């Protein structure tokens, strides 16, 4: 199927053809110097076909040949994806660098998987077995996981295993089984298969309601605005509010099997940081490097815009693939606004009628469709697996009323809104505790969270009132509530991402400290005057800060209540070990101090009563 270029403007090409074309199928524009540029059919009108080019269109001429293919833009799936760094079209960047040097020249494409590397194959089926799409044929070890090789997802109906390769080393392109369909035709199966990125990949018995908390080790998220495995959440925020740092922290500490980082239209520098750091960092839960459970899809802002649109889908497809294997996957998309802007650019070139802020009218449905690809599924063999999506949003001017934020809020289960005022005050993570929300139940009893929330809200009301009536006009009880809200904020909600201990708080520790703080926040200390209240809560606050920097001592929680997996403490290197206090000691000091306050309160109350009697 061939055509000729009729018009070129920006990254859009109009081609003329008399042949059959498939919408959303890929094709190549052949430059006069022989370089082929990947493109996608996005509109057909009569015999003219609108194509978006995934490269710079420099050098294309009217009359140049266009080759049309049948298949849609697809991801290559198979063992060897973990630890890779891809661009939005799944070209492996490190191998591309070896081949082409510093620059990403147009028309340079490479196969996503290393076709020479061999894998230790163990068959799980035998000749004569009946299988269907997504059933496991065998497995190979990849990183710490058992990577199942499955019947291609697109195959319909039932197949009989005709033959299966014996245990041994095979490359991804080697045939590992032959299956026969109902009409007796034989089909070869290799370890790799492809799947169109824009079509959801979900071969499951059923979808389940996501309920299992996804622990990120970020306190404000896990305790106050939890996310769940198979759920969705978004992080909108103005520039400089710490979206990317929050995503990086999550990608390091999240309790999932696999993390897929999609850097979509963001700075290359941030990806470089991850690329250089992750191979050196150890995953405390597996003892392997973080890179071995990570895939990076990196289509930075300087790369062609059409590929940016594709990168989000490529990342999602890889996430769904590992979900089919039976793992829990977290997809972090940074930033979905850049993806939406890519849609806007393409829509503008197609001269479609624009919607709000010139975004296309289908913006909302595209965003909704994307987030709906997350979920917990029950596989045919009853195992559960999940794909979670966390997307950042970069609203213009930091204003959440813009179309991308609003479209996203409608479809996600949790909203972590970052605020400029919190980041300016250096309160990190800058998630606004009063504006954010989550529809999920996390690791802490929702009733307790609601109680804490009430104190936070009341504290904020009082603070606002105080700006009008002044400190003198505020009753001491109200003033104390405000101080308690402030104490909770500084001692619990804020977290130092750059300290080894404070950066990640385990489930048991969060439950323990949260309960402790809630207890203090609900205790009536019967302060006599504001200075006493301020002094006391400042002191408690600073004790808790020390506690945050101390290494967790699991013995404070009864063994039966523990949920954390025991970690190997000896393996941890810490250059600040000497400065850190002892968890139990600090805890003892806090308890002692609180007790003394209560005793004093009781004593003075008794004295007051005596006074009243004598009067």
């Amino acid at each position, binding site marked *: 199927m061939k055509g000729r270029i*009729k*018009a*070129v*403007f920006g990254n859009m090409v*109009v081609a003329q053809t008399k042949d059959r074309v498939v919408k959303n199928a890929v094709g190549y524009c052949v430059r*006069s110097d022989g370089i082929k540029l990947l493109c996608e059919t996005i509109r057909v009108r009569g015999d003219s076909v609108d194509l978006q080019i995934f490269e*710079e*269109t*420099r*050098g*294309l*001429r*009217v*009359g140049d040949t266009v080759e049309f293919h049948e298949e849609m833009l697809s991801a290559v799936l198979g063992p060897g994806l973990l630890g890779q*760094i891809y661009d939005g079209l799944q070209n492996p*960047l*490190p191998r*591309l*660098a070896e081949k*082409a*040097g*510093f*620059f*990403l*020249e*147009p028309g340079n494409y490479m196969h996503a998987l290393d076709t020479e590397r061999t894998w230790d194959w163990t068959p799980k089926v035998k000749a004569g077995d009946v299988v269907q799409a997504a059933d496991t044929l065998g497995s190979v070890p990849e990183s710490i996981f058992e990577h199942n090789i499955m019947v291609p997802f697109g195959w319909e109906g039932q197949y009989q295993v005709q033959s299966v390769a014996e245990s041994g080393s095979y490359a991804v392109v080697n045939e590992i089984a032959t299956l026969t369909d109902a009409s007796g035709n034989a089909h070869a199966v290799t370890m790799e298969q492809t799947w169109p990125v824009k079509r959801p990949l979900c071969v499951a018995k059923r979808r389940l309601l996501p309920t299992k908390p996804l622990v990120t080790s970020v306190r404000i998220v896990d305790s106050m605005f939890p996310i769940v495995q198979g759920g969705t959440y978004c992080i909108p925020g*103005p*520039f*400089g509010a710490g979206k990317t740092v929050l995503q990086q922290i999550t990608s390091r500490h999240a309790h999932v099997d696999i993390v897929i980082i999609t850097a979509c*239209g963001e*700075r*290359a*520098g941030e*990806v*470089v*940081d991850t*690329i*250089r750091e992750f191979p050196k960092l150890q995953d405390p839960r597996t003892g392997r490097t973080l890179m071995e459970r990570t895939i990076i899809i*990196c289509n*930075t*802002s*300087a*790369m062609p*815009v059409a590929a940016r649109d594709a990168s989000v889908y490529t990342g999602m497809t890889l996430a769904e693939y590992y979900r089919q294997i039976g793992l829990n996957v977290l997809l972090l998309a940074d930033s979905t606004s*850049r993806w939406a*802007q890519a849609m*806007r*650019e393409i829509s*503008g070139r197609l*001269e479609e009628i*624009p919607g709000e*802020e*010139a*975004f296309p009218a289908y913006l909302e449905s595209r965003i909704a469709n994307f987030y709906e690809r997350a979920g917990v599924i029950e596989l045919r063999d009853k195992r559960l697996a999940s794909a979670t999506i966390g997307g950042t949003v*970069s609203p*213009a*001017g*930091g*204003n959440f009323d813009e179309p991308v934020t609003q479209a996203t809020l409608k479809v996600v289960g949790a909203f972590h809104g970052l605020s400029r005022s919190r980041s*300016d005050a250096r309160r990190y993570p800058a998630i606004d505790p009063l504006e954010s929300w989550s529809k999920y139940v996390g690791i802490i009893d929702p009733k307790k969270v609601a109680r804490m929330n009430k104190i936070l809200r009341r504290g904020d009301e009082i603070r606002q009132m105080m700006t009008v009536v002044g400190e003198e006009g505020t009753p001491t009880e109200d003033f104390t509530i405000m101080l308690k809200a402030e104490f909770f904020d500084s001692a619990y909600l804020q977290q130092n991402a750059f300290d080894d201990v404070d950066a990640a708080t385990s489930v048991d520790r969060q439950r323990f400290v949260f309960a402790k703080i809630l207890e203090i926040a609900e205790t009536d200390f019967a302060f006599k005057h504001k200075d006493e209240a301020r002094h006391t809560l400042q002191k408690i606050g600073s004790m808790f800060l020390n506690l945050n920097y101390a290494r967790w001592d699991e013995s404070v929680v009864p063994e039966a209540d523990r949920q954390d997996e025991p970690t190997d403490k000896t393996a941890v290197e810490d250059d600040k070990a000497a400065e850190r206090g002892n968890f139990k000691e600090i805890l003892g000091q806090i308890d002692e101090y609180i007790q003394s306050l209560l005793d004093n309160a009781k004593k003075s109350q008794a004295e007051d009563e005596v006074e009243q009697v004598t009067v």
Partner: protein
Amino acid sequence: MRTFYDEITKIAGNVVTVKAQGIAYDDLAVITTGHSTSLAQVIRMEDDQVSLQIFGGTEGVSTGDKIRFLGHSFKVPFGDALLGRVFDGSGRPRDGRPEVKAKGVEIGSPAVNPVKRSVPSKMIHTRIPMIDIFNTLVGSQKLPIFSVAGEPYNDVLARVGMQADAEVIILGGMGLRHDDYLTFRNRFDEAGVQGRTIMFVHTAADPVVECLLIPDLALAVGEQYALQGKNVLVLLSDMTSFSDALKEIAITMEQVPSNRGYPGDLYTQLARRYEKAVDFDGAGSMTLLACVTMPGDDVTHPVPDNTGYITEGQLYLRNGRIEPFGSLSRLKQLVNDKTRDDHQAIMNACIQLYAQCEESREKREMGFELAEWDMRLLKYGDLFEEKIMDLNLNIPLFDALDKCWEILAECFEPEETRIRDAIIQKHWRHKSHQPKPEAQVETVKS
């Protein structure tokens, strides 16, 4: 092959449409009118209708004028002959000297493969304390200066150009007043850095299309030097003029505007330029400092807003000073722990104390009673502004740090600075060692 096309079918805005065949997208052409010649670039092709953006503007273009295609996209000559020279937005000499004969490099090169970038690690010394101490510029960083019309942002840029320890300095001027251009030239001349400076200048009087090319020219040349292993500093002023030129062309081309008339791809256009800042793994680096004037001092305006999402921090220039609070260099922690052990401590302490001084000033303005502590903060604030915040200073980092210690010692007791004891013991200036005895007398009085 010298083929002329003269069937011009449309002239609108800065765009001319001509009937031609076999032309490649992005190709360059020369249009010869009755009184001048100008470069033009293909921006749209439809059948045999080729639309060209005319760099020199379309005033006086007639339907009978001739267009010759050059058969390649825009190239800028590259070589050491460029050093010390000034060019306009079409790459022609602006300094009255002959054209540079050198091999051309294509502008707008593809993106750098992220795995060939290295993590930034070199500090760029500008000898301006507000940058060096508080918002350290790091090699390969892209940092904008957010400012408003009337602020001396071009002075700051010129100063950085004169004082920074870069091997090659490239200035890209967009929409500059002619006076500003001359000022840049004179100051570089006086400072004797002309020999390692290349200027690409578009003045407000020049055709708007030429403005669009300035960053590409400057960055293409800078990139070549970086590939040769040099550390390049590119100064751009003013990116808002560049964005406005984008807007003008987009609207002429009947593109749907998105926000305040700017095209929907403003982010991409800006990012493609800013992302050229790079530290090549195994070669040199290119650092980018760009002025962005904020219309109406509004940081949510599309240009500063999109810029903020792309760059690694920002400097706010207000009232002739770099704002100590909003300004931020996101990469500073990559280098400021390796300069001198007191760098980070001084950075934090000085800013915190200055913030407290601002509170005391507010108190003073409201007519509240001032404590002795407030008086000392006020004194500190004045000294800090005079000796550190002044943008006319030209002192190395270590001297600037020493100066901070002097100011601290003059105003405070060691424990009041909340600096760690270990650092205090090493660096604190005891009063007996103070160089200025009169300052000591003052302290006693207060």
